[in-house]
């Protein structure tokens, strides 16, 4: 079966299921007795198993199958949820995720998950936390222990005139179809009694995951000899060992299992009392919050881009039609064109919105991340997310994830204080981190607020002075806001020791750089002892920027407004020539002049237009960091919103050109990268 065409669907859907399982598992952690949640997780795992098996990803299918077993035991009341089981399930999800990622990267999705599988099997069979790695579910004789349920069946059956046996069967070495033989043994057994438990499990035996032997706990009316004979009759059986279980044997088994089981039952009974109340409340709340399955379609991003391009073409033609209609002055033509203009305006809004994606897609991995992080730092943290349905342009969504991760980790690592500190300070033991997204004006704001320690101004200043970022005198004149901005300087870090999480001092400056590259800004507010807010402001659409259009010798270029300090006109007499370089005095600074016409080697315009200006030069004063330059042009055309277009893969390493845009008349204008002009 050709599965390739389904591969992308498989990846999308498995990611969705994994995300759903993650979310539900987090919920389950807070409400371990809510069977409803377990059912949801079970369903996701089950669907994932089916999909993986169909696509031929066996390891995925096998792992989800094991998860199913554990979940099934829990939802049928045979196994109570506890921290260890939850942690193991989380580990499963991690393994599943890495398998899916492997598939995305063209791999086969195989992964050695024997460690996790062993844990799951151990949980399944009623043992608690298994020993160190290497204890794979040993399919050896008699190794499998029984849980309370199975033991009670054995006991009951003995009381009601059945015998209980432990049967060990070894197949002949030269046996070809081991699974088939085992199947026959099972078949025979099942006709005459009930198999309580088999080691290894039935599935493993079906898949021939055993050496030569397997063992079974069995209940039957037959006598021991009859059982032995029945099995011995089947060919290729090397050896049959039937042990009749009596009270004593059972008790021993019980003792072995009970230590583990005791904890479970104690927890279970205590939980059972609290459960009904909590479960009901939880269920009531859950019903109202049940996710509304949105009616959506998956669309290829490339198709959207093509749609947008075609649409801009349409706009250009519309403008031309409008001007032609104005010339011809025919009423019906003008009317039709006006109607078309209105419709295309609406279309334009919709098309722009198509690129908008809710931030939820970025936010949804955070709860799990914060949980893991808090756990590893021994802190208690609540992550409250609001406004996840706020929408951002697709390109922003792709880029904003990493900076947010960093800010969140900072909040958890540096911001929130440890439970002891919090109690001492009279704050609730569990810290809160708010992750908020909302629209305001023409921007989208994403805020990360924690109720932790706050930022210590003096510590920041000390570090900044020590690293030579500012001088001691400057420190005194800085406002609190300015001080906090120092955190974003490169090489800055106030963490005493470098943990795995933070403290390396390469994070916040990259965060700010990324946010600025997206056309946004980040600000910090903080109060000592109370908490800190990092506020990220992003423009609603990123591929549209404000630019100044300029003309040089018949060619038009665009300079992004964000690089421009000011525009001015300078006169010949303002120009100073020193050492072969030209400068101009500008607002008490001496600024080098850049004659763009020379830099870009512009050819003389063919129509003999005004090539050499008078003694006045329009300039655009640009800055790069704290350096400036005055760029001389022929004409400042005006400010305009332009759509960024990439130049493609062929033209790379262009000097002072960062991209292109398409002007209203369909012509391409290049966008100048002024950083290259400032030395």
């Amino acid at each position, binding site marked *: 079966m050709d599965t390739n065409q389904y591969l992308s669907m498989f990846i999308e859907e498995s990611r969705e299921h994994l995300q759903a399982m993650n979310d539900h598992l987090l919920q389950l952690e807070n409400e371990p007795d809510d069977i409803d949640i377990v059912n949801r997780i079970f369903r996701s795992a089950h669907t994932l198993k089916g999909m993986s098996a169909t696509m031929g990803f066996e390891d995925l299918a096998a792992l989800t199958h094991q998860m199913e077993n554990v979940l099934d035991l829990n939802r049928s009341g045979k196994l109570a949820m506890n921290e260890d089981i939850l942690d193991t399930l989380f580990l499963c999800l991690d393994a599943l995720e890495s398998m899916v990622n492997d598939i995305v990267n063209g791999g086969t999705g195989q992964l050695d998950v024997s460690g996790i599988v062993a844990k799951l099997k151990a949980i399944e069979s009623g043992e608690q936390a298994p020993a160190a790695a290497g204890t794979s579910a040993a399919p050896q004789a008699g190794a499998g222990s029984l849980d309370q349920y199975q033991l009670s069946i054995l006991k009951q059956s003995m009381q009601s005139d059945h015998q209980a046996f432990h049967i060990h069967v070894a197949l002949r070495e030269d046996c070809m179809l081991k699974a088939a033989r085992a199947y026959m043994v099972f078949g025979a057994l099942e006709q005459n009694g009930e198999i309580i438990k088999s080691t290894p499990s039935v599935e493993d035996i079906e898949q021939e995951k055993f050496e030569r032997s397997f063992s079974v706990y069995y209940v039957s009316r037959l006598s021991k000899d009859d059982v032995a004979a029945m099995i011995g009759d089947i060919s290729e059986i090397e050896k049959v060992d039937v042990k009749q279980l009596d009270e004593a044997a059972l008790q021993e088994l019980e003792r072995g299992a009970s230590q583990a089981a005791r904890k479970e039952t104690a927890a279970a009974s205590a939980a059972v009392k609290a459960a009904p109340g909590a479960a009901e409340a939880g269920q009531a709340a859950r019903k109202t919050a049940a996710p509304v399955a949105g009616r959506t379609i998956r669309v290829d991003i490339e198709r959207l881009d093509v749609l*947008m*391009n*075609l649409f*801009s*073409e349409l706009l250009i033609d519309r403008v031309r039609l409008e001007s032609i209609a104005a010339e011809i002055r025919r009423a019906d033509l003008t009317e039709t064109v006006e109607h078309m203009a209105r419709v295309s305006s609406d279309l334009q809004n919709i098309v722009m919105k198509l690129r908008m994606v809710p931030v939820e897609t970025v936010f949804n991995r955070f709860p799990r991340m914060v949980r893991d992080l808090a756990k590893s730092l021994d802190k208690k943290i609540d992550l409250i997310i609001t406004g996840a349905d706020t929408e951002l342009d697709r390109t922003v969504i792709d880029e904003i994830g990493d900076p947010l991760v960093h800010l969140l980790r900072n909040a958890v690592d540096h911001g929130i204080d440890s439970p002891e500190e919090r109690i001492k300070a009279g704050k609730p033991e569990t810290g809160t981190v708010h992750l908020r997204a909302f629209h305001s004006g023409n921007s989208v704001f994403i805020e990360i607020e924690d109720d932790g320690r706050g930022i210590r101004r003096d510590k920041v200043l000390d570090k900044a002075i020590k690293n030579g970022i500012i001088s001691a005198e400057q420190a005194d004149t800085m406002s609190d806001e300015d001080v906090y901005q120092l955190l974003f300087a490169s090489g800055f870090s106030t963490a005493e020791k470098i943990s795995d999480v933070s403290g390396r001092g390469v994070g916040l400056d990259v965060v700010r750089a990324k946010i600025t590259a997206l056309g946004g800004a980040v600000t910090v507010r903080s109060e000592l002892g109370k908490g800190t807010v990092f506020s990220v402001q992003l423009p609603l659409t990123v591929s549209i920027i404000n630019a100044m259009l300029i003309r040089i010798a018949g*060619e038009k270029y665009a300079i992004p407004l964000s690089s421009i300090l000011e525009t001015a006109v300078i006169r010949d007499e303002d120009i100073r020539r020193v050492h072969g370089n030209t400068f101009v005095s500008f607002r008490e600074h001496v600024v080098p002049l850049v004659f763009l016409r020379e*830099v*870009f*080697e*512009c*050819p003389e315009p063919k129509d003999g237009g005004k090539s050499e200006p008078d003694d006045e030069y329009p300039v655009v004063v640009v800055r790069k960091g704290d350096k400036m330059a005055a760029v001389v042009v022929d004409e400042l055309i005006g400010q305009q919103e332009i759509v960024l*277009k*990439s*130049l*493609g*893969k*062929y*033209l*790379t390493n*262009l*000097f*002072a*050109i960062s991209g*292109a845009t*398409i002007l209203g008349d*369909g*012509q*391409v*204008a*290049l966008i100048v990268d002024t950083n290259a002009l400032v030395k």
Partner: protein
Amino acid sequence: MGEELKVIVFALGSEEYGVEVDKVKTIERMLPITRVPKTPPFIKGVVNLRGVVTPVMDLRGRFGLPETEYTDQTRIIIVSVKDMEVGMIVDAANDVLDVDSDHIEDPPEVVGGIKAKYLRGVAKLGGDRLLVMLNLEEVLNKQEIIQLEEFEEAQSGNA
């Protein structure tokens, strides 16, 4: 009997060249070109191709032939190689032909150093017609462009 290749035939001056159809995205009439500063002279600039900014090169310039005025016949052939899209300005683009790969011979050694590298072979069509098969990857090869620039700089340094 070798493979049958479908080939787009275009002309530079009196010579005819061929490019395999599957590498050609579209053939356009001349479009207004925006110059890109500080690029090799045969890279004429970029054009607006239905909303996508696409670079174009003059193939004559690329082959070291003298450039001519553009006429009504001048076309831009947009090719796609290694997910780069580039337009090539040619004098005319007329035909689509089937060429048997058996009939493609190796290019003659001599023909002016640079040009030979871009050629995959010469196909003999019926009636004395010769079709020069282009090696697009070499035509679009940027490594060579960098070397060209360094070479030119060295030259101007010595001169």
